[in-house]
């Protein structure tokens, strides 16, 4: 089987999908190079992100299909699903051929699959909107480490650059070791270079204590229901949450 490889960025994924449309030999899968251990039977081609091609694909989805399709492929490109790129290709392939009416054609396996991947990303994103925790480091920077499954840095940055416009902050994806930094004007993503993963020693903040006290006090003990709590706030989100540490 022919497999296309990318670097995990949206631009990389889109470049592969673009090349899949251009190439005579269609890839069986489109995977992240870092997550793939290559075997002897399959053949692999790596494509470096190409801004022009990625942009062209994204725009084509918008004008030839719809803005819903455009949003969908961007969100799917952030997914941790191994063959998310393949899903984007299959989705666009159907919509390009059959038209705008197929954007929500859930009766079609490939269309449904793409929407399900998109929904998974959005669920995790929405949860982190609430569960992300900032700590004040130094005098003026707020720092939020987290370990998402999907590539959420840029989505979250969009939200917080509006909400916390007048504060400096860093959101650190520890899964990919990449950080978005906001400097009061714009945000940008960079590889996180630290001496050691946990070398940032965080001072004990008095508001952490107040927050924990608040949560204790606002709980109705007669209604204790840990299972409901677990359903609503799964364990994997709690690692960096002030109240769970």
């Amino acid at each position: 089987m022919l497999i296309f490889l990318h670097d995990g960025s949206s631009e990389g994924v889109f470049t592969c999908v673009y090349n899949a449309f251009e190439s005579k030999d269609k890839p069986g899968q489109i995977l992240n190079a870092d997550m793939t251990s290559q075997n002897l039977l399959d053949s692999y081609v790596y494509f470096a992100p190409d801004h022009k091609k990625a942009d062209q694909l994204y725009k084509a989805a918008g004008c030839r299909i719809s803005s819903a399709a455009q949003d969908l492929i961007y969100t799917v490109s952030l997914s941790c699903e191994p063959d998310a790129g393949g899903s984007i290709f299959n989705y666009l392939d159907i919509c390009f051929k059959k038209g705008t009416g197929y954007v929500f054609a859930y009766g079609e396996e490939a269309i449904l699959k793409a929407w399900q991947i998109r929904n998974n990303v959005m669920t995790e994103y929405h949860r982190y909107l609430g569960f992300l925790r900032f700590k004040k480091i130094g005098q003026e920077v707020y720092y939020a480490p987290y370990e998402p499954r999907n590539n959420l840095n840029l989505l979250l940055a969009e939200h917080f650059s509006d909400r916390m416009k007048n504060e400096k902050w860093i959101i650190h994806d520890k899964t990919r070791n990449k950080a978005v930094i906001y400097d009061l004007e714009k945000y940008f993503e960079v590889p996180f270079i630290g001496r050691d993963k946990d070398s940032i020693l965080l001072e004990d903040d008095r508001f952490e204590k107040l927050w924990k006290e608040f949560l204790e006090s606002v709980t109705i003990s007669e209604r204790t229901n840990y299972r409901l709590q677990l359903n609503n706030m799964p364990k994997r989100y709690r690692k960096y949450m002030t109240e769970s540490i």
Partner: protein
Amino acid sequence: MELLEKLAILADAAKYDVACTSSGAKRSNTADDTLGNAVRGGICHSFTADGRCVSLLKILLSNNCAYNCEYCVNRKSNDIKRAAFTPREAAYLTMEFYKRNYIEGLFLSSAVIGSPDNTMELIIKTVKLLREDLGFNGYIHIKAIPGTDRKLIEKAGNLVDRMSVNVELPSRKSLLLLAPEKKPEDVFRPMKLIYEGISEEGKAVKRRFVPAGQSTQMIIGATPDTDHDILGLSEKLYGSYKLKRVFYSAYIPVVQSSKLPVVIRPELRREHRLYQADWLLRFYGFKVNELLDARSRDLNMDLDPKCDWAIRNLSFFPVEVNTADYLELLRVPGIGINSARKIIQARRTHRLDFDNLKKMRVVMKRAKYFITCNGRMQKGLRFEQEYVKTSLLLSENSLYEQLSIFGDHGNGV
């Protein structure tokens, strides 16, 4: 008193107010020097050990109350520790919590400090401090204290996202018995004022008077009021005052009183069923009189209200998934708002079968009794009232142990 101790007392005193949601307002942060925005669907920031969502910093300004309502833990004659925040302290906590992404904003209520007007003025002072001095643009929900002057309600409404007045008890009789100082008029007058403020603003292009609308809360199980009484009042409030939400709170005995029932366990299942029914009223086009009638004044505890209605109205079914309109689809147990919308989108290009529905996450274990796909019911099922009822009861009751469904109103962001 230390801030930590105050917070413990005044959060504890606020915990029975269940309306901790941050929904209904959408606002981006347009100025350069302000903090915060609002997201239409609201955001849950944490979940406490009772499984309830925490979205707002929910506190009382003071628990030192001039009133003596029987059911209330803050009643004047109750021997508890009293505390009060200064407006500055409450505003400061809100700002610092918000910057750490602990909360969506502030939910501020208070015991009656001297008089209703005085209390309202202190609440307004806190909110003004946040909005005007500190540049806080996040979500604010405040209580309108019953008996407050009209001018103060108007002033407050222009500063906050949501304002609410608690009905507390669903009938005049119950209110007179348990909260003699709170006259029904005192509750409905501010509600009406808020409603009028909203209607007035509705004509303007950009609405600023309580953009997220108003809500209220009722206590369940402290009085003999039936579910029909409760939901009937909710229906009226949604209709005549255009309320956004009515919250239901299973009564938990916090004080001893000869006027109050002895409750061993809070009626959590009843509360859950009321929320389900409430959802049917607001989003599914049901009327109270369809769900309950003169013979059954209370909701079925063993089946959810939609299943219960469907079994009693089998003549409405089966619904053909490929042709039914949106409202008909919504009446099918197992098909919610999302599934109904997805079905309508999907059938533009495909005729749907049972397998498609299952993959689209329709809850088939309930829906299968009430639908046809391309004219056929699923094989092996009988379309008879007793059979459907027994089957549903069996599958629901095995679920009781597995699912902790109670109190899911806490999700109500």
